[in-house]
């Protein structure tokens, strides 16, 4: 069977796209490596309309259930590793060697955590270096930890860690935060959190486990800071694999799309955190919106090409 549309990615953008595709009766499937996307890791989502406070996993479960209820074929645990185009049909191969065919594709593969890119980084993963505060905070009860980053994820990670840790150093590259004022106020009023503006991590130190970090700029006359754990919250970046295979036009690694979410390649749309749209404001609601707009455009395209 050749699908009219295959949506790659099962996060907010991909699943919302599926909801709209089902309503427009577009013959489609959703393929996602892991259910939910990055938002599933969020401890608390407080800005999604209709949900005053919900954790990311529960929110994504609701969106997935909604998409499934409308009849979507959702293939979770399948990773697309290859996309080829032949006679205007896209041929997609999964890691488990399944082959699927589609007339159009919507790329909604989102982003992954950005790493520090320090040569010694790998050595300390799970040994003091962490990328998910909600997962690992409890292992740092009454310990000293650092958080690096200045956006919402860094602010919320620092607050979450402050609930259990003895002390939290929040290391911010710029001279100000880049997150919601509500979180900034909470951080500045939390006496367990100490903010180091205009600073960064130069080196990680420790025999087996992380024991200290070298800072870019001295703090209290020393560029070495002793801590038990460091949480990296310096934003996200897209996975390049499929983008490169499709030869899509990019701006700083993000897919350039027009106002209808069309990429430079015919038959390929993109939505969610992976695109340049929504002014780079990468939120669940903007991802959902882009997914909906993409499907509206795909529907028009299918109608014209009947």
């Amino acid at each position: 069977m050749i699908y009219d549309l295959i949506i790659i990615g099962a996060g907010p953008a991909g699943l919302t796209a599926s909801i709209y595709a089902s309503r427009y009766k577009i013959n489609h499937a959703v393929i996602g490596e892991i259910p939910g996307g990055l938002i599933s890791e969020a401890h608390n989502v407080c800005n999604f309309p209709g949900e005053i406070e919900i954790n990311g996993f529960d929110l994504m479960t609701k969106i997935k259930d909604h998409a499934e209820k409308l009849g979507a074929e959702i293939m979770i645990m399948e990773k697309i590793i290859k996309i080829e185009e032949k006679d205007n049909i896209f041929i997609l191969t999964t890691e488990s060697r399944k082959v699927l065919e589609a007339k159009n594709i919507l790329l909604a593969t989102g982003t992954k955590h950005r790493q520090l890119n320090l040569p010694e980084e790998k050595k300390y993963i799970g040994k003091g270096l962490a990328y998910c505060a909600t997962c690992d905070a409890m292992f740092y009860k009454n310990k000293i930890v650092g958080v690096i980053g200045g956006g919402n994820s860094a602010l919320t990670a620092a607050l979450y860690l402050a609930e259990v840790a003895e002390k939290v150093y929040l290391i911010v590259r710029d001279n100000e935060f880049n997150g919601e004022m509500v979180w900034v106020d909470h951080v500045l009023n939390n006496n367990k959190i100490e903010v180091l503006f205009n600073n960064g991590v130069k080196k990680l130190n420790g025999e087996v486990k992380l024991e200290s970090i070298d800072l870019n700029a001295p703090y209290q006359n020393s560029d070495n800071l002793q801590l038990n754990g460091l949480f990296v919250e310096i934003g996200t970046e897209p996975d390049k694999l499929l983008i490169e295979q499709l030869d899509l036009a990019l701006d700083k690694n993000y897919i350039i799309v027009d106002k209808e979410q069309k990429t430079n390649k015919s038959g390929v749309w993109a939505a969610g955190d992976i695109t340049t749209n929504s002014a780079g404001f990468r939120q669940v609601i903007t991802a959902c919106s882009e997914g909906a707009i993409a499907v509206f455009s795909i529907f028009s395209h299918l109608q014209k090409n009947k």
Partner: protein
Amino acid sequence: MNKPLDINKDNFEKEVLQSDLPVLVDFWAPWCMPCKMMSPVLEELAVLMDGKVKIVKVNTEDPVNQELALEYEIQSVPSMMLFKEGQLIWEFIGMHSRDSLAQEIEEHLKK
């Protein structure tokens, strides 16, 4: 059908260290969202690798298991550890897709 088995400190020795089959141990915690996301992945992996690998889960929040978590120096969840003939042969942190996990396990068991 092969399904992930919940174990604890009391049967860790029998189910993991003395197991005839290689064992993948998932150290997880109820508050950890990626652990929840990995749960269906491990269920499918158990079916895919039936007869080759046993999959067990250790809840690190359970006070009974905290000694185990300390012994294996768990500081991140999900932490997966692959044991063969009682020896730890591979470990990794975080999420993996079903197929890449199966591939990695096969490769480490061959060594």
